[in-house]
């Protein structure tokens, strides 16, 4: 009854979302540009009264204002800090737990089923409960971030360390490796690709979870809260600004992490191109 025997709906598993698309050059921009122009036109004709369509000029103004007042940088910064917290705390916990479970069969049998059941509840589902327990402050947001970071890393650390091939462990023994050496020089390096993938997943999930909890709670700083405030005030320009930045940062996280982990994965056989 091992932990990873089933994958629950809350996990995306190996999803091609980390492969970024090859854009078809200029043609790809045609539709977005058209969309923006239509949007702009309709806004200027005041269709929807500023609640739906925003003129590009207004959008630009909102951007400048948000940057100048320090709102945008502050909100982005706070959200990112929460993500960082979640990754460090939740991530470390996840890796440690996953490693412990991979190395100790009794622990695996004990915790595995319980964790698997808990995994079925999506991160967002915990928000009202945490809100009940901790109110609207910083604590529940940080806890959600930690939770979102924990599971992908736990799962990947577990699979990675468990999946160390017996043939390599044996080769290590022949070379005189003892228990510690076998872990440090065989299990860990062979688990590294999965760990790094887990880290990528954790970063993406934690970003989403942070935004989610900020939107649902609405109070306090953060990009999600900014978007939510915008919606309450009926200001599409703020909302749109927030959405664009959420998307940009999500893209940046994926792109950067791909770049960073590539050298560590050099030794793997390339099974598929790009």
């Amino acid at each position: 009854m091992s932990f990873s025997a089933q994958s629950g709906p809350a996990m995306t598993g190996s999803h091609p979302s980390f492969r970024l698309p090859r854009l078809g050059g200029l043609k790809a921009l045609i539709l977005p540009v058209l969309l923006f122009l239509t949007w702009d036109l309709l806004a200027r004709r005041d269709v929807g009264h500023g609640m739906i369509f925003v003129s590009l000029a207004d959008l630009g103004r909102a951007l400048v204002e948000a940057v100048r007042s320090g709102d945008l940088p502050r909100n982005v910064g706070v959200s990112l800090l929460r993500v960082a917290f979640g990754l460090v705390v939740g991530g470390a916990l996840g890796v440690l737990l996953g490693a412990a479970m991979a190395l100790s069969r009794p622990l695996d049998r004990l915790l595995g089923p319980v964790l698997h059941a808990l995994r079925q509840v999506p991160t967002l589902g915990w928000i009202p409960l945490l809100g009940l327990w901790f109110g609207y402050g910083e604590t529940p947001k940080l806890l959600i971030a930690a939770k979102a970071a924990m599971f992908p890393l736990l799962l990947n650390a577990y699979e990675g360390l468990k999946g160390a091939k017996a043939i390599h462990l044996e080769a290590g023994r022949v070379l005189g490796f003892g228990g510690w050496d076998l872990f440090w020089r065989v299990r860990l390096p062979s688990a590294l690709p999965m760990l790094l993938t887990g880290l990528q997943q954790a970063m993406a999930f934690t970003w989403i979870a942070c935004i989610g909890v900020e939107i649902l709670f609405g109070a306090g700083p953060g990009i999600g809260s900014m978007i939510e405030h915008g919606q309450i005030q009926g200001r599409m320009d703020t909302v749109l600004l927030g959405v664009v930045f959420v998307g940009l940062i999500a893209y940046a996280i994926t792109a950067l992490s791909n770049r960073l982990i590539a050298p560590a994965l050099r030794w793997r056989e390339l099974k598929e191109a790009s």
Partner: protein
Amino acid sequence: MSSITSPVARRPAPTRGGALSLSGVGKTHRLAEGELEVLRDVHLSVAPGEFVSVVGASGCGKSTLLRLIAGLDNAYAGEIRLDDERILSPSLDRGLVFQDHRLFPWMTVEQNVAAALLKRRLGREAKRKLVAENLALVGLTGFERAYPHQLSGGMAQRAAIARALVNEPKVLLLDEPFGALDALTRLKLQEELLALRRRTNATVLLVTHDVEEALFLSDRVVVLQPRPGRIAQILTVGASARERTSPAFGRLKEELLAALMAGPSPAPLDLARRRQASSAAGGGVG
């Protein structure tokens, strides 16, 4: 002609090789369905610097025997000694080359060979030198920074051999090392192994199912019979039989093949033991 089981008299070898002695070695697997006797009563002495091949059909226990000598498994009956010390666990004294090269995929060729030196107290420069020397020995100079997945089967196996040799082991164990390679590469590597052997003087124990390979490389060939694995015969390969095209080679090859085809039949020694055992109402071995 089959020969006696005592080691061949040789010129005193320059000390590197170790002397192996196996007495009464047996191994039984405990399975759900019962017990499976894999090896029974193996007696063998290998002189320092000798090259001995072990041949046999699949399932005759030859790989198991090698693993016991390597020290990967210490649940067996009987004794295995290297230079009079009992073998209980893996040690750098005994190098092992697997059929699948088992290079660590996350390390370069250089790092793989250096991994064998991890447990040695040597300076960094000394280690680097050793690695370079052994890579040169197997003809892989220039490929230090390559990763295993970039190497061909033959090259990877060469790297594995370098890794096994870098510690100047007393005994070199090879488990069907060329089985996974194509015929041409196999022939080439056999030649190289012979050359290597001349240069390093280690005692070599090679497990193979390729009869010609065994005859080409070894001083003696041990034939193992399956179910359970026992020594059926030991042939000595004289100097005249070294050439693949010589008549002596051909004759030995036929003899070996005949011995292999003969199938499970109780060895004379075995019959005597059985009579003893049945009269004492004793159980099996293991």
